[in-house]
């Protein structure tokens, strides 16, 4: 995907929040320029916002706890919201959630707006709420988020740790919308990232047109579960405005 073909572009500094409406068939390419970035992501069906990204349904449908090329992010209604059509990174975290103000202060020290003006250390929980509030959503809608560009390893006893594989400067991932999707992003640090230095480095977010999903699509054909998930997404659009096409 050449970057000169982006229809919309944004550079999101570390710690900040952002949202965009990604209609069906468009894709969002996220790039972690520094390698130290993390992108917390929530996703909602823009046409019915009680339908939202569901971590547990995403994991059990695809028998995975990592997200990578070929995976989709399922809603709680059995439909893929976003599908990972491209990925240079390999293992995005799903099970750690985000940070709050107390966690950020404990890890990085007190550096609030009064002290640091816009260089203050922002946290994921507050950023998500500030963005959700703009769309008429709130605390009830702050569900477990996905964390792009962070890899969390799990050992045989179930212990978790942030992996060195998280550091990949220039890593990118492409998320194609399978419904009309409200995407909410927080670039606050991953909750398992260690201090004391708060991350710097921007996330680049570019939107491009991905087009119709081919029958041979890597996400659609990844497993029988995803085949049925894509069929459920098509059913959502089975009654187009103005009647069926001739």
């Amino acid at each position: 995907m050449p970057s000169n073909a982006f229809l919309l572009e944004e550079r999101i500094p570390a710690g900040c929040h952002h949202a965009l409406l990604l209609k069906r068939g468009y894709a969002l390419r996220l790039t972690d320029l520094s390698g130290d970035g993390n992108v917390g992501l929530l996703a909602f069906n823009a046409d019915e916002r009680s339908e939202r990204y569901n971590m547990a349904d995403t994991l059990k449908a695809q028998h995975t706890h990592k997200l990578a090329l070929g995976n989709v992010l399922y809603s709680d209604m059995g439909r893929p919201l976003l599908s990972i059509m491209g990925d240079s990174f390999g293992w995005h975290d799903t099970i750690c959630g985000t940070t709050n103000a107390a966690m950020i202060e404990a890890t990085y020290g007190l550096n609030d707006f009064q002290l640091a003006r816009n260089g203050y250390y922002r946290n994921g929980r507050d950023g998500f709420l500030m963005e959700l509030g703009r769309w008429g959503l709130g605390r009830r809608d702050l569900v477990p988020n996905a964390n792009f560009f962070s890899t969390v390893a799990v050992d045989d006893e179930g212990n978790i740790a942030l992996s060195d594989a998280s550091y990949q400067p220039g890593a990118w991932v492409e998320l194609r919308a399978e419904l009309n999707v409200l995407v909410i992003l927080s670039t606050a640090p991953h909750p398992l990232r260690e201090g004391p230095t708060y991350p710097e480095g921007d996330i680049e977010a570019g939107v491009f047109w991905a087009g119709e999903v081919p029958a041979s699509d890597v996400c659609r054909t990844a497993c029988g579960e995803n085949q049925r998930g894509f069929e459920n997404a098509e059913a959502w659009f089975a009654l187009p405005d103005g009647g069926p096409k001739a």
Partner: protein
Amino acid sequence: MSTLLRQETIRAGDPFMARIDAGQRVRLVDTEGNEAIDTFFFNAEDPRERYSAVDTVRRQRKVYLTTGTELVSNEDRTLLTIVDDTCGRHDTLGGACASESNTVRYAHDRKFMHSCRDNFLLALLNWNEDFSKRDLGPNINFFMNVPLSADGGLRFEEGISGPGKYVELVAHMDVLILISNCPQLNNPCSGFNPTPVEFLLWDA
């Protein structure tokens, strides 16, 4: 000596909801063995505060739940602590079954089978109509075995529970407990044979 306040049998496939005051102790018994008990919690005074699977995992740096696990809310506060566990390990990443996810996981014709989501919604709306689907999040599956592998996998496996195994929790604040005695017949989470479970509550 604590007093038994309440004892209920939750029939196979049924919902259940109750209030547990701070300091009270609850026991859930897997009466016949390998029965998934889908369980969720709210702060009784402010139900916008609810159980958070990811905050629970993140705080203890471990994905399985057992004795000593603090069940953490979306406000990073402890709702309850697991104080006894004769099973040894419980899941909090597999979520609740639903007709929609059944169509994805198994087949489109499984849509009309009974599910934990139906139980959760019915119990919540009967309790207070201010509740809706928005108030639900990934729950705990007591007695369910969902191992994660080092290569990134996640599987629903045969249970490691057995008849009479139980888990006990003490509440740190006044909470609402929401239960679905899982009716799932398509995977081994309830041994392909859902059975009754027991709810017991003692005072502080």
